[in-house]
């Protein structure tokens, strides 16, 4: 029996289904890792060992009874704290939702549970997914398993760290502007944001509804594929969901593919190691049979501005429901209804969430809508066209996921714009609704610390399978993803 943390989800499910290990063994190993690492890394906001054990006992009973087992049979999974799951506290790392237990379970969680996955806990994040370092969590930041002084990225920080630290083989995050790809890059693991709409959003607590997409983290590409496929497909509870249940992988290689490299993604400001590793990765892809072509995405420079108009507008609307009437915290204030709303929101939301609600409220208000929100929508269309045009001359686009590796906690908290710029390479893809993966492509030395670098592989609309194929080919040709972080759950044979 291999060590729990050495296996990816596919292998773990296979061993568990084959009776080489039990689901209860997996839960025990997972919680051993939680005990070993959670305190120092701050991965989870809440876990529920009893619930996980009960689920494992039931799965073991099914295995013993010879019943049909799911593709994720007995695999522990970590969920971001913005995912509604009955029994768990889905508080979005916000004081305003402290204690909130959703009365229903998200469609994508139900689908993974039906396949045998075992939710173990809710992971830390930037409050309401607003941030790139988890420093906006009301409950403290998550620390990077490669260097605890550094961020594990954001907003899906805890889920990335859980996988990078070997606590769970797979975890779910949500990617609105890069919130899965960037932490995947900073933690040296795989992350995949499918085409917008591929996975139902029902049960994902909304931040920017036209951008939000449930996205998996894993230590192998086949896990990304499996989890994405299991979650995909129409949902009667989400009318924006695409009807694409299948994820038909094309060839497992990049032979003959034209890979576009946008010059805008290699502009000044890229950390030297990141640039070097990504250029090496492109060379690797070429060696594997791809043709490299230069492309241009001329409106990329406006992406951050557009994103912070569109996403904040939607956020100001989505977060209007948190006023203390039906759920979460309530502060009575001056006794009037409006007073209660104001006092609850004043006390419940952190500064970054307030900043974005204010920004979003402003860009939608009478007299400013056209100049801000209306114009942002127009530029968003131009950004989408950039990609469409680029994809006329290539099959995939690659570039760095993040302009720099994991930065030190506290280094950007005083400068929101500097923080926003860490998403500069992921946000255009989100605005265009395209599928993109971040794959480990090596390491960079920053002041004697070895930090992972991620390569972003971007596909045209609905070409999720093509992105994953290229990721798989790159994974097979390199060893970066097999390296383990210093804070990794090595202990125990189980």
């Amino acid at each position, binding site marked *: 029996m291999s060590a729990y943390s050495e296996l990816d989800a596919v292998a773990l499910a296979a061993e568990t289904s084959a009776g080489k290990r039990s689901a209860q063994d997996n839960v025990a190993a997972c919680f051993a890792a939680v005990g070993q690492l959670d305190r120092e890394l701050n991965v989870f906001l809440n876990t529920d060992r009893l619930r996980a054990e009960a689920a494992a006992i039931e799965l073991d009973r099914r295995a013993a009874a010879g019943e049909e087992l799911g593709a994720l049979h007995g695999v522990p999974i970590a969920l971001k704290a913005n*995912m509604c799951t009955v029994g768990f506290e889905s508080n979005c790392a916000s004081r305003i939702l402290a204690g909130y237990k959703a009365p*229903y379970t998200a469609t994508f969680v139900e689908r993974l549970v039906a396949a045998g996955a075992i939710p173990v806990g809710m992971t830390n994040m930037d409050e309401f997914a607003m941030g790139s370092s988890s420093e906006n969590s009301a409950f403290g930041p998550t620390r990077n398993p490669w260097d605890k002084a550094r961020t594990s990225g954001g907003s899906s920080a805890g889920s990335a760290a859980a996988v990078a630290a070997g606590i769970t083989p797979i975890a779910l995050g949500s990617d609105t502007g890069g919130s899965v790809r960037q932490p995947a890059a900073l933690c040296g693991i795989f992350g995949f944001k499918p085409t917008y709409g591929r996975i139902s959003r029902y049960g994902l607590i909304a931040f920017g509804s036209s951008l939000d997409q449930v996205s998996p983290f894993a230590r192998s590409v086949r896990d990304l594929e499996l989890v994405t496929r299991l979650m995909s497909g129409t949902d009667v509870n989400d009318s924006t969901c695409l009807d694409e249940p299948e994820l038909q992988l094309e060839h497992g290689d990049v032979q003959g593919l034209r890979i576009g490299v946008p010059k805008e993604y290699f502009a000044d400001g890229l950390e030297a190691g990141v640039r070097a590793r990504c250029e090496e990765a492109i060379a690797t892809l070429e060696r594997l049979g791809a043709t490299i072509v230069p492309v241009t995405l001329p409106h990329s420079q406006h992406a951050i501005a557009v994103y912070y108009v569109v996403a904040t507008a939607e956020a100001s609307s989505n977060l209007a429901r948190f006023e203390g009437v*039906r759920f979460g915290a309530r502060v009575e204030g001056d006794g009037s*209804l*409006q007073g209660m709303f104001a006092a609850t929101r004043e006390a419940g939301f952190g500064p970054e969430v307030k900043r974005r609600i204010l920004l979003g409220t402003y860009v939608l208000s009478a007299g400013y809508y056209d100049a801000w929100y209306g114009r942002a929508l127009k530029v968003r269309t131009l950004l989408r066209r950039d990609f469409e045009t680029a994809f006329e001359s290539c099959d995939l686009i690659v570039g760095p996921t993040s302009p720099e590796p994991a930065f030190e906690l506290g280094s950007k908290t005083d400068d929101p714009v500097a923080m926003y710029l860490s998403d500069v390479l992921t946000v255009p893809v989100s605005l265009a609704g395209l599928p993109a993966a971040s794959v480990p492509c090596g390491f960079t030395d920053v002041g004697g610390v070895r930090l992972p670098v991620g390569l972003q592989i971007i596909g045209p609309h609905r070409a999720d399978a093509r992105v994953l194929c290229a990721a798989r080919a790159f994974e097979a040709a390199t060893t970066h993803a097999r390296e383990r972080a210093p804070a990794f759950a090595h202990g125990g044979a189980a």
Partner: protein
Amino acid sequence: MSSTGDTLRLRESGYVSKRTGTRWMVVIGLEVHCQLKTRTKLFCGCEYRFGAEPNSITCPKCTGQPGALPVLNREALALAVRTALALGCEVKEKSKFDRKHYFYCDLPKGYQISQYDQPYCTGGGIRLAHGKFVRLTRIHMEEDAGKAIHDRGDKTLVDLNRASVPLIESVTEADIESAAEATEYLASFKEIVQYCGASDCDMEKGTLRCDVNISVRLAGEPLRTKVEIKNLNSFRFVAAAIEYETARQVEAYESGDPAQFPVQETRLWDPNLGVTRTMRSKESAHDYRYFADPDLPPIRIDRAFIERERSSLPELPASRRERYESAMGLSAKDARVLTAERVVADFFEACVRLGGKAKDCSNWIQNELFCMVGDAEINAATFDEIQIRPHDLVSVLELIEKGVIQGNAGRTLLRAIVKTGRNAKSLVTELGLEQVQDTLQIETWCREALVGKDKIIADVKSGKPNALNALFGPVMKASGGKANAQVVRETLQRLIEEM
């Protein structure tokens, strides 16, 4: 319908100031909200019922739980389209839902899903009896809010049963010029929507709500400041509020003091005091921050869908009234009463199709069946709850016409049918309702009735035939209502003459 009489009496052009004698023009636009009669709510599967236990008809979607998403109810869309077609509107192939933001405790998401700049239909309207066409600007779909309850102690209670129930909001152009026109428009609108099966339009249950936009001006002037009046939950209040507000605005202008002139604001009708009062001014008006709801794809209504709805529309009341008068010879009043509710009109037409005479069917429906609604013995709260088929009424009318039973016995028979659910023929025999034609028996009853009635006999003999009526009743009573009335009358006459 009771307002019809008032409508005619009140119709006049403009408003004449009592103080100055000046004639002012009144400019009115109406916004009417109707609750659509769908099985489930607009964006979730909850099955709404009026009067249910508070918060018992809710789910993650309509309580605005984080992460829950709206899903459009196609049945609501179909009803909305039917209404639009019946009102002559142009249904748009593409429209969208927007979010309308404001904070209130009965609004679970902090926004209402509505339609802002791309409603699902525009145009259309209703022609009033005197020929004026009141134009509709648009109709849009939206979800209702819940209900805040303030009268249970010091805490406000919130009931979200009504949250996300489907509404259509129709907005007219400012074509209406009097309270009478407003009530006529509303009555007609209500009738059409009910005929489409789109809404019950029951103001008491809040399934029809109306806001009034009103201003006054002098002839030839441009429009003056417009005031919105809310909280009008009966046609009577709409008329009263328009009349009050007209007088208030005219008086304000005629004071000559600009400080007293009407301001753009929302006012509430106070039915207890019969006045409107300020609710909120323009300065404190909400900025609703509309934007397209990213959770709902654009609405596509294809031609086939529209034609399907159009082909299943019933004949509308105005056309039926016209037909009842011209082809069936009914009076305008009868035609109006019969068409006021679609179930009644459909019942009436079925009776006529089965061979009933239009005038008889009309009389019996109005005189007999209408009285059964609310009758303790019958147990029917509405017309369509009366347990009777058109065939039953026609059978009763045939029995009367053939002389098998008396008119009075027909009434008894009709009630017996409704109460037992059995057919006319078997009941006639069982209840012994056939007319007594036996002249000897009738003569015996008449002689008994004449005993000691010398005064009446003298009156009849002295040329007052109406005095006979006092004797007619007791004879019919003695016969159990079954004596042939004509024979009774003739026998009484003959006996008195012979005296």
